[in-house]
């Protein structure tokens, strides 16, 4: 089909607009990558604006020698792995029974769960509960209070409901119990939704700092995001450089480089997973929107 004149101008405008949007989004990211790989002197003076100038891995060297960052990284890894496993198991436990139409009381239980989206006790009563349970400043507080997310139960339930009914019914006639139906029939068919859940939850764990800020006190239990906050936002970098024998100005400069490198290191797993993340996350949003 031939475009008319107005359509052609529209087209040009559209491409220009979207290109500008994409550039605005990508530029800060590129800048951080380049800044982390440059001599910090050029970053501070404004001479580095797109590609790395005087390429160096100095900043990364400092990041990987920093005990706090390594420790935070390992803590986050621990919280993310355990947390995600618990999350996915709990989501399946909730979603499968609720996807079964022959389950009596399913509407009531669903309402019981969904109600918590709209009304919650809030920060203080929850904090007091966690304190009374003796979970403050423990590993468990990073995993258990967020054991399952309502929205993800809904997504997974929607997926389970889309599995043909007859499949489960015929298994039942053959004398298959509910556990075996779930384990041998439903779960093997649910790989896509489980992958989505693993990604949803693990990105959430990796990126969260609120839980740790409220409930953790010991520095050696802090996840990476809290360490990052100390470095990037509160500017607590003194102890990282005092060991080096550089001049004051040089120290200031290396702190600059370090901040950019820390940003990259914190996102490394996400950056490497991004191609998968994008595909599965989009899929997850689609499954969720069927119901939403």
């Amino acid at each position, binding site marked *: 089909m031939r*475009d008319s004149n*107005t*359509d052609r101008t*529209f*087209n040009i405008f*559209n491409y220009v607009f*979207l290109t500008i*949007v*994409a550039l605005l*989004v*990508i530029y*800060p*990211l590129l*800048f*951080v990558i380049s800044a982390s790989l440059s001599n910090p002197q050029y970053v*501070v003076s*404004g001479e580095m*604006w797109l590609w790395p100038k005087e390429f160096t891995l100095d900043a990364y060297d400092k990041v990987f020698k920093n005990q706090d960052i390594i420790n935070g990284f390992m803590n986050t890894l621990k919280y993310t792995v355990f947390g995600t496993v618990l999350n996915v198991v*709990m989501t399946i*436990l*909730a979603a*499968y*029974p*609720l996807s079964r139409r*022959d*389950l*009596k*009381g399913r509407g009531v*239980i669903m309402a*019981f769960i969904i109600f918590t989206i*709209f*009304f*919650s*006790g*809030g*920060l*203080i*009563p929850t904090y*007091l*509960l966690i304190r009374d349970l003796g979970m403050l400043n423990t590993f468990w507080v990073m995993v258990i209070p967020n*054991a*399952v997310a309502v929205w993800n139960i809904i997504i997974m339930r929607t997926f389970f409901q889309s599995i043909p009914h007859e499949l489960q019914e015929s298994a039942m006639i053959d004398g298959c*119990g*509910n556990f075996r139906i779930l384990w041998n029939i439903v779960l093997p068919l649910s790989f896509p939704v489980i992958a989505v859940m693993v990604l949803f939850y693990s990105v959430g764990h990796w*990126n*969260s*700092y609120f839980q740790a800020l*409220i409930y953790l006190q010991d520095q050696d239990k802090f996840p990476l*995001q809290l360490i*990052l*906050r100390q470095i*990037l*936002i509160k500017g607590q970098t003194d102890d990282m450089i005092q060991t080096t024998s550089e001049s004051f100005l040089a120290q200031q400069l290396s702190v600059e480089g370090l*901040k950019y490198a820390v*940003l990259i290191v*914190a*996102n490394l797993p996400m950056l490497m997973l991004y191609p998968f993340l994008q595909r599965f996350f*989009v899929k997850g*949003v689609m499954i969720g*929107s069927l119901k939403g």
Partner: protein
Amino acid sequence: MTNMSESVAPVEKFETYRKKKLFKNRQNAKKKTWVEWRKSVRKNWELYLLLTPVILYFLIFHYFPLYGLQIAFKDFIATKGILGSPWVGFKHFERFFDSYYFWRLIKNTVGIGVFTLAVSFPIPIVLALMLNEVKSLRFKKFVQTVVYAPHFLSTVVVVGMLLLFLKTDGLINQVIRLFGGAPIDFITEPALFKSLYVFSDVWQTMGWSSIIYIAALAAVDPSQHEAAMIDGASRFQRIIHINIPAIMPTIVILFILNAGSVMAVGFEKVYLMQNALNMSSSDVISTFVYRSGILEAQYSFSAAVGLFNSLINFFMLIMVNHIAKKVNETSLW
């Protein structure tokens, strides 16, 4: 009189008969549901077993705090527990309403909420509509890959980047200096806080929020467009008259959800962007609850503030949903 009673009696008889039958029916129904329940539990006991940890989790971590909310009306004393602490009525609410902070907190919370709704809500719709018009699949894929990416960055990272770029010797101020302007201290300037908050939010979320509209647009029947083209409609006219109406239900639902949470400004990002100098425009209810509750241990007072906030959120959602139902046919429930 006798005549009357005679004529009434059969009616009464009929009434009692009907009531008895109703009662019996109800009893039967009760028995029936009871039997059904027993049958269901026997047949699907495994399913109830699977649900048990989930129900326990929600009871403990979501419903018990609701029970604990009563401390908002009490003077909570840790040694006496939630039940044993003395009732004080609306004391904490009154203290909050009369406090110097009250109007500042409301103004900032509503201000940030409304500003976010006004800017962050429509931009993804425009983005989706424009992406939908791109014919080159490669270009479309490229733009999507780029704009989705910031969604995966953590709040700490986004705020960290913001602070690095906006420092007095940061990237933005270097550009300002290049054009001969005087550097601006963005981070501590109260007048700029809300804009920084909202536009960094747009940067991070616009791509991701557009996915749901892109999906809705993909479902538009192409024959509608063909028919419109034969009638001589331009691209722009087709967007206005075909695409926008097609995604209207999605827009309304998301608008309800977003408008309902105008007062529920999240803690995480505001708290990270806060500093002593911009407090006058950055202090919101959630950060206030954190400070007075967790840091200063005024449990009852901050529980009251939190309850006030969640009640408002709840009623906002109901109200917006009601309005949407009246104006449009779409609503959440």
